[in-house]
């Protein structure tokens, strides 16, 4: 019965405790012990996500939209398995590959080629599997002339190109994309979208977070609208994007 479900969220909530007293360091904790203990008792939970449930079918592309702080990135982190829900359950089926933010997971002292290996292994492949794909990754990134130069000499657009190229060549079952594509130039973005179309045809499940309603409506099968940590609505892109725009105007 699970065969056609790639991601399943059931009653997922995530709350953080704000103003954790230990973040300030030991000195602060000891010097302000009485007030610290008091604040520890009184600290209020911040609900980043409240009772979110939805399924993503295998091969589906679902976009998450909503204002800043609506819970999109938290949802993505929960799916990536980096955060654990406070309540509820997150189930995923298949190898997940998060598309890293600009520079995340890359080391700027290492060359592009060395970073491909590092990133590929960190994202779940063995060295051999990465090496088999290295040529394709370099080809796709169009960074031939720079691939053996240290990453610190790259422009931010080049780093994104490399990151995207690594992520899409790892044959993930589930690809998580957190609005990073805005940095690349128009031509590379087009190429990325072509690649995403290719993934869709191949049956890769995608979760796409973006503020760009144009690309959202272009790529997604369904759109999920978040507001203040709640899933407001999920459904056909046109309808949800309209609802989102109405809300933005009203607010």
């Amino acid at each position, binding site marked *: 019965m699970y*065969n056609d479900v790639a991601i399943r969220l059931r009653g997922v909530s995530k709350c953080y405790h704000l103003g954790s007293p*230990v973040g300030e360091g030991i000195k602060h904790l000891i010097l302000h012990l009485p007030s610290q203990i008091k604040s520890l008792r009184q600290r209020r939970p911040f609900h980043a996500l409240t009772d979110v449930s939805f399924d993503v079918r295998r091969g589906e592309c679902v976009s998450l939209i909503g204002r800043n702080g609506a819970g999109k990135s938290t949802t993505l982190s929960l799916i*990536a398995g980096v955060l654990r829900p406070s309540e509820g359950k997150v189930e995923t089926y298949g190898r997940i590959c998060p598309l890293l*933010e600009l520079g*995340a997971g890359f080391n700027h002292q290492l060359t592009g080629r060395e970073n491909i290996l590092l990133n590929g292994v960190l994202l779940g492949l063995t060295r051999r599997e990465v090496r088999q794909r290295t040529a394709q990754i370099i080809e796709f990134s169009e960074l031939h002339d720079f691939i053996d130069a240290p990453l610190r000499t790259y422009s931010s657009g080049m780093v994104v190109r490399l990151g995207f190229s690594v992520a899409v060549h790892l044959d993930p*079952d589930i690809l998580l994309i957190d609005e990073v594509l805005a940095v690349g130039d128009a031509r590379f973005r087009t190429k990325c979208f072509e690649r995403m179309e290719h993934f869709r045809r191949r049956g890769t499940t995608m979760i796409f977070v973006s503020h760009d309603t144009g690309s959202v409506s272009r790529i997604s099968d369904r759109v999920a609208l978040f507001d203040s940590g709640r899933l407001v609505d999920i459904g056909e892109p046109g309808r949800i994007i309209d609802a989102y725009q109405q809300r933005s105007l009203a607010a």
Partner: protein
Amino acid sequence: MAILSTFAATQTRSRALVYYRDLVLVLLAKEFKVRYKNTFMGYAWSVLHPLVLALIFSLFFSVFVRLQVPDYTLYLMAGLFPWQWVSNTCFGANGYFLSNASLIKKVRFQRWMLVLSGVLNEAIHFVCSLPVVIGFMLYYGKTPEWNWLWAVPLLLGIQVVMMTGVGLFIGTCNLFFRDLERLVSLLVQLLFYLTPIVYTADMIPPGYTWLLYANPFAALIVCWQDLFYAGALSPAFVATAAAWSAVWALMGGCVYACKVWRFAEIV
């Protein structure tokens, strides 16, 4: 179906082992390259530090203070090289998780591998500095004994486990108390003088010998000195070092396991 089966395939034990090996190797290679990329003297630096310390101490204690320890420079090196590993791990541990914040926030992987690769990196440096120690041994008319064949791997094993425990403990705690770094540097300094490195274990008055067992790193250092300087290991100190190694591994492992799920929230 296809996806489920490939997923199952990635989860098989042998692939997992290959994967973990590769993860450690890749992280190790990264540390190494980053460390040496801009300094062609890389290896020399890691040997130079304990060497210079040994020279300063031998000038100070055998010429000025006139401490009566035969082959004092060799004795110093026998303690300073393994100590350098201990102190580098303690300092490095502050950043094992913190400096990989962006990775921890985004990617799910075994975070303790960051600590393990850092510790193995120090281990490699230590092993690479052994020829220098052997050189000094030869200079003082000593040669490595056959017991090195089992004793060196044994002590290396004890120290890798101990340092991994220390690294997990400090690395995790430092995420929650960001000024732990200062405290650690103070404690490392303190423990350096509480460990028989510049003085010998038998100079310690009888009333204070318990310190050798209470100091988490002393027994291990004494073992290395026994090997490089005296030639024979003392079972009591090997056992103490192994026990401390188990204690650190347990402490580090527990703290890490309790808090690992909060790493992404807090880095």
